[in-house]
């Protein structure tokens, strides 16, 4: 599937991570913690030196003009190694959106910032009353034509990395009383604006990766509207399509399955029939889901249409990841639920991650919404 050069790229990325990640790194990165965040910044800087942050972007924006394979390799390895430093919001969401819809000013400024590895982005979509029903967002954006400026007021929620971010892309209602999908705009904000207050929210795995963001009279120039004013809905949807694919879940799932297989071998249970059969079935489903995620990422580069593959691959990847973690829990059981002096890092990681991966079926559009999309838009079944 991958060329010689691409396989070589894989080796290079792995050795770069080796340089920074402590040996026996056993945890999903928690960027709330200063140490993990510092590590993330260092790794991004090193990637940037080689133009590896977004290798498939054009050279003039800090990329390498590679095809999508390099980006696939990058995401998969970072997830497999559970390494911090893989920028989802900049490289995988707003970046491709700007390449498609952005003005020359936006591309020049923001894409180069992203590939410098020094700027963190966050996503301001969800609100307390607008989750799956994203088109109902009510955060207000008042556009002043004379000043060419938007003033934003409202509350966003579940904003991952909001506490670390320098910039946010935010979906706001710029035409009041407009129809649901109309009168929305996608806008770029600077997070250092004094009108922005970030309140951390603790999640079920015990860390605080997401936040509530309260915006009071936050101002941004009209130059920061992505696409056209009041016509942000399709841009925002397309961005979500870039977000999906589930490639990270494939990396996390593969790591868990490899570690589990080794664990079963070490404690001498791999020869049992039911373990062999279950691990093999999980492996088959993982490998096939992986191919589907590759297709989902590849197809986005082929034409401008909105495809069903990203929704499908997100479903498949999140599902197999959960199945693998659930089976790992069956095997590890008490080691995972009781922390004593015999407790092993693998078991506690599996449990913590299992809680964390609840989010796989929710963020970026829930499982149920993906199924609706596939049925309604993919198969043309009526609403």
């Amino acid at each position, binding site marked *: 599937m991958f060329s010689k050069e691409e396989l070589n790229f894989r080796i290079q990325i792995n050795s770069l991570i080796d340089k920074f990640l402590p040996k026996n790194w056993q945890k999903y990165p928690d960027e709330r913690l200063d140490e993990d965040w510092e590590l993330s910044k260092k790794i991004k800087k090193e990637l940037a030196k080689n133009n590896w942050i977004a290798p498939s972007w054009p050279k003039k924006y800090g990329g390498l003009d590679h095809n999508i394979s390099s980006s696939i390799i990058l995401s998969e390895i970072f997830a497999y190694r559970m390494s911090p430093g893989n920028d989802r919001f900049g490289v995988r969401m707003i970046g491709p959106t700007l390449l498609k819809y952005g003005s020359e000013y936006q591309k020049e400024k923001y894409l180069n910032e992203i590939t410098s590895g020094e700027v963190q982005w966050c996503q301001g979509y*969800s609100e307390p*009353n*607008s*989750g*799956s*029903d994203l088109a*109902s967002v009510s955060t207000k954006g008042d556009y002043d034509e004379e000043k060419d400026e938007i003033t934003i007021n409202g509350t966003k*929620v*579940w904003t991952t990395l909001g506490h670390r971010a320098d910039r946010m892309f935010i979906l706001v209602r710029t035409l009041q009383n407009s129809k649901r999908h109309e009168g929305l705009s996608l806008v770029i904000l600077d997070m250092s604006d004094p009108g922005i207050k970030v309140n951390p*929210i*603790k*999640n*079920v795995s*015990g860390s605080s990766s*997401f936040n509530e963001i309260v915006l009071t009279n936050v101002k941004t120039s009209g130059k920061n509207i992505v696409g056209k004013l009041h016509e942000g809905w399709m841009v925002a949807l397309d961005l979500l399509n870039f977000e999906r694919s589930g490639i990270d879940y494939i990396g996390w799932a593969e790591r868990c399955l490899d570690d589990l297989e080794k664990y079963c071998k070490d404690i001498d249970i791999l020869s049992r029939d*039911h373990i062999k059969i279950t691990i093999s079935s999980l492996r088959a489903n993982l490998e096939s889901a992986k191919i589907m995620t590759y297709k989902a990422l590849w197809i986005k580069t082929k034409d401008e249409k909105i495809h069903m593959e990203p929704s499908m691959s997100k479903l498949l990847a999140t599902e197999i990841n*959960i199945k693998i973690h659930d089976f790992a*829990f*069956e095997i590890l*059981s*008490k080691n*995972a*639920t*009781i*922390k*004593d*002096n015999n*407790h092993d890092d693998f078991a506690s990681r599996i*449990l913590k991650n299992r*809680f964390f991966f*609840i*989010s796989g*079926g*929710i*963020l970026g559009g*829930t*499982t*149920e919404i993906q*199924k*609706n999309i596939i049925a309604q838009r993919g198969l043309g079944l009526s609403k």
Partner: protein
Amino acid sequence: MIDFELNESQKMIISNLDKNLEENFDLRIENKKADGNKNNNHGWDEIKALGFLGLLSSEKNGGLGLSFFDFTLTLESWGSKLCDGPYLENSIIIFLLEKMNNDYSNNLIQEISSSKKIITSIISEQFIGKEQIPMIYKENNEYFLEGNVKNLPYLEQSTDILILALLDNEKKIVIVDKNKLRILDENKTITGQSLNDINTEKLLISKNEIIESKEFEFAEFYSMLFTLAKCAESVGIASTVLNMTIEYVKNREQFNKPLASFQAIQHSASDMYTKLSETREFVRYCSKLSIDDKNMKKYVSLAKIKCDEELSKIAWNSHQIHGAIGFTWDYGLHLMTRKLLLNKSLNGDSLLHSEIQLQ
């Protein structure tokens, strides 16, 4: 005769217990406990005050003389309010002591029922080979206990510990005063519950402290009943998960409609409800079997397998239905999930119970 109906006195006991346990139930305190910042045994004081420790002791011993099935019904309430404390352990010990029916056992039953003695134990884990078993040896006509016992719950609330030990390769049950033991490490479960490792270090024990149980294997029966009791507790926990979910989908609106109106949500909720109802009835059925029934062992294992398969799945589905709010710590849904996973990891896994039920 087939009868699924609870009788009036069972209904009364449950509603009375529900009311009492509801009063001090606070998810915020439970959250602090899970965070390791607070020890909290919600429900334990209420159980003692209501005299429920004597639920399974005979009227002769001052108890209520109720059945094991009645007891498991109370555990559904107990689980549904995330209660914690050595209620299961002490009730089952009383139930088995009743079968012994001698002066020693009757005296002990009365002490436990009146909370003068509170016993903790992990013999169910010791019995299935998941925790260490100390040795008893004889020296100059005296008996000594030697070895460690790991992951004991509720040490703080207890006066004594019931330990499975080996004397000449024979399983014996010993009840030892907590103060005679050396406490080693403190461990934590994922629900924030404290567990202790203890060391008996050549502990002199009197012959009296070794329970002789000729008619039945105390440890084996304890292990079976405890497994079943934990199943009933898990059913209670899962029923709270279902209730929270239904409440939420009726109130949360997206696309200008309650979540409850989407077919995907209805199907998911109806699956949860069906599986929970099925599991509950099965656990109840198994709890009605007599411990002398030759099928008891098999059905305990089947109940454990069924609970392990269904109940944590109900919790994970509930997280999905809740969306991001169910992913937050403060909402508290994770507390039920944690407790269900903890219960799943105790008393043997599906492989062990598959082997038992196939025997």
